[in-house]
């Protein structure tokens, strides 16, 4: 690395740094690899999509919730539409479940009417208010106490980290580089270039995109760019092993505090309850603990929407942080060849492809970047045995018998899938979990963890003691029995 002086007349590709391998950074990186540029991604954590991207509701919002003339409104419904093609190219799953916003009284019905109006201004298609009976027909387990519901068939669910994984894999396939476990500490302008000081040394780039999630404000500030300060908004969740209890994403009527606590089917056929909406201090950007108060609030509110919820089916609880600011809108700040994307709170996931498209489009035009003719848009997914027909299963097993050996009994994940996940970049147990859904099920890994560690030992050549759950100090075992 470092500054390279080129002989006069020779053209070198521009170097672009993307800071943050969350969903926004990943999609921007992938978008840039369509052009003749050098793309390098910097990620503080050991894997992609492990920050804000990992712990949110995983919803493709329709776009009725966002006040017109905000960036949220500009990008949400457009991003939602873009996901169809994106999911086909990158081979991640989305499910257009539709969503219902439930009103429990006339005052809330008034709010639904406002949301309907807002949705029309924002260009949201097929939005309508349903009577109590029609809503219950779509969602039989919804509380009988509702009086009406706003229905959007275009809302959906996905696993956000899968999008980040897929986009990064595709970007790497198209020539990008990634620096994992590499924290960018500051950005300095240095003539025409930018100097990134990182935990792994200094790097020079022509263009810098700051998509550092919760830390995007601090990083912008290090470059002398003023943006709205961020504080984390914590969302606590409960994941239930209770499939098909709801079919659509169920919202209560929103209030000033936000969209409220939802009940939704996940892409993995579990049921998710949450999130809370707790504003933490700006210094609490790593406070992802759950609390007794938070979890009991989730239970209370979720049961109001869906009384049938069965908590004895709890898989686990978790909490995530969303990057929030005082103006409650995304901030996209341009400063010569540096772009800071700040406060990509909800609906940041839905908006991500549209934001990525616009930002890359802008730079492409400004710097007159040329398209590559060998860009491969398709990313091959890790095969998923459980979703295949018997014929497909037989064919794959005959080519590679390890696809017939089930390792994770809860979600029927095979050895072949785990090996493939390692080849796709998994280096930790969570890396395997978030690529295959092994250890995601009702035993939470108590049956399959040892087998997975043995596969990792064989494939990566690590000792048992070196294998970690996620972060460097999260080892599983501590030494040999005497």
């Amino acid at each position, binding site marked *: 690395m470092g500054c390279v002086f080129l002989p006069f007349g020779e053209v070198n590709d521009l170097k672009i740094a993307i800071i943050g391998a969350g969903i926004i950074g990943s999609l921007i990186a992938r978008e840039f690899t369509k052009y003749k540029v050098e793309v390098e991604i910097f990620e503080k954590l050991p894997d992609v999509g492990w920050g804000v991207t990992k712990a949110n509701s995983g919803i493709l919002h329709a776009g009725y919730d966002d006040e017109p003339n905000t960036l949220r409104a500009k990008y949400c419904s457009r991003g939602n539409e873009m996901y169809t093609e994106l999911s086909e190219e990158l081979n991640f799953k989305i499910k257009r479940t539709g969503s219902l916003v439930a009103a429990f009284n006339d005052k809330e019905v008034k709010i639904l009417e406002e949301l309907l109006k807002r949705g029309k201004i924002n260009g949201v298609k097929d939005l309508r208010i349903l009577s109590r009976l029609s809503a219950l027909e779509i969602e039989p387990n919804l509380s009988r106490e509702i009086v009406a519901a706003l229905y959007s068939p275009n809302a959906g669910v996905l696993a956000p980290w899968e999008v980040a994984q897929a986009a990064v894999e595709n970007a790497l396939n198209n020539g990008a580089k990634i620096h994992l476990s590499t924290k960018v500490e500051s950005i300095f302008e240095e003539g025409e270039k930018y100097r990134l000081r990182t935990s792994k040394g200094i790097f020079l780039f022509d263009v810098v995109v700051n998509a550092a999630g919760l830390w995007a404000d601090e990083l912008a500030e290090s470059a002398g760019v003023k943006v709205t300060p961020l504080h984390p908004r914590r969302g606590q969740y409960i994941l239930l092993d209770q499939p098909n209890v709801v079919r659509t994403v169920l919202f209560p009527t929103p209030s000033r505090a936000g969209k409220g606590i939802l009940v939704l089917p996940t892409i993995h056929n579990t049921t998710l309850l949450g999130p809370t909406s707790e504003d933490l201090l700006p210094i609490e950007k790593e406070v992802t603990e759950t609390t007794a108060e*938070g979890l009991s609030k989730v239970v209370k509110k979720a049961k109001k929407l869906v009384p049938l919820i069965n908590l004895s089916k709890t898989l686990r609880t978790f909490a995530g942080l969303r990057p929030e600011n005082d103006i409650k809108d995304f901030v996209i700040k341009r400063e010569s060849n540096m772009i800071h994307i700040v406060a990509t709170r909800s609906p940041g996931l839905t908006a991500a492809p549209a934001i990525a498209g616009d930002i890359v489009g802008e730079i492409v035009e400004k710097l007159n970047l040329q398209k590559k003719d060998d860009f491969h848009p398709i990313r091959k997914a890790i095969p998923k045995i459980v979703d295949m027909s*018997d014929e497909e299963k037989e064919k794959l*097993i005959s080519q590679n018998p390890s696809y017939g050996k089930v390792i994770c009994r809860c979600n*029927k994940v095979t050895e072949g899938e785990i090996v493939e996940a390692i080849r796709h970049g998994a280096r930790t147990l969570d890396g395997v979990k978030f690529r295959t859904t092994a250890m995601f099920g*009702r035993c939470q890994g*108590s049956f399959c963890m040892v087998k997975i560690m043995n596969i990792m030992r064989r494939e990566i050549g690590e000792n048992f003691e070196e294998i970690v759950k996620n972060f460097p100090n999260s080892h599983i075992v501590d*030494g040999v029995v005497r």
Partner: protein
Amino acid sequence: MKRLEYDVVILGGGAAGMGAIRGALSQNASVLLVEREASTGGVLNQCIHNGFGVRVFKKELTGPEYHEMYLEKLKGFDAMYEATVLDIDSESRLLKVISASGIYKIRYGALVLATGARERPFEALRVPGSRPSGIFTAGLAQHFVNLENRLPGRKAIVIGSGDIGLIMARRLTLEGVEVEGVYEIMPYQGGLTRNVVQCLKDFNIPLHLSTSVVKVHGKERLEGVTVAKFIDGNPVSGTERFIGCDTLIASVGLIPENDLVDKEIEISSSGGAVVDDLMRTSVDNIFAAGNNVCIHDLVDFVTVEGEGAGQNAARVAKKEKMPKRVGIFKKGKGIRVISIHYTTATIPFKMYVRVDHPMDMAILRINDTNLKTVLNAKPSEMIEFTLDPTKYNLKGEIELSAVEAKR
């Protein structure tokens, strides 16, 4: 797709499944075992402590010894190892199985479910705090220590006083891990008294009743927990105490494993397969035995249950006419679990029950008749008795109850 056909197919090769193999072979049936792991034995393989075999072999054995000795009795069955059932179609009597050699469709005359139980993971308890590594179910910790030769950590606490938790408290102590204590949310122990004495008292490991975890600490690896006193399942504020530890072993309940069949057969409120005295489920040619019926204390009982299930499955597969159910058992006052839900009232059979709270002296009753007096009855200790249809009226609705009496 390969097709196979057997009289009796047995799902799971642990103690109950091996018993079923023996039972079915004794009736000259063709037998196929479908087992997820690479060998028979199930959890016996990692239970290197003793206490097995007192009933079946009349001596005290370790788990692996019990497995090997019983396996020697089994000759002439087929088995698929590292094979997983994907689907059961009870209408067409077909199983779909996946293994490294492909997808199999297997037709059965009768099926025996011997799938055992799984542990409730700590995560299911919704304890607030962080989500670090260092949290294990007792069975997973046992697997690491006994089969992989690895220590889970250096200082541990055990949550829940189920038998595997108690046994792991001793096992870890023997391997040099500091076990700070065992914490039980209920006011009474969850495991056998034998284990409380031999695993805790003999090693000076304290058992804290009515106490459990209210918070988990540590971002990457576990750094400690906050425990508190509990009354009626709720933490008492002001009683919190921090304990530094890098390992948490959870022994907080076993759940009968019936996920494959919970839409095919009747399941009890405690999650077990509902069976009659022939170990027959609500589907005439599907039998069940072992921990997927109800959680047992002793492997010997599981073996015996499996043998009965295997024999009766073979009889059904050979088109023998089986008796109908004539009596239904109801849980009355004082009873939490019953192993058998229906009876054909044809032969004497074993019934196992658990009381719903500790009783100094419990009188077990069948309808209005006293059956048995049990001193020091505890929910953690199964009560075993034989019901003989020539002695008791076992037709219609039969209530089993336990009444507390003064000594």
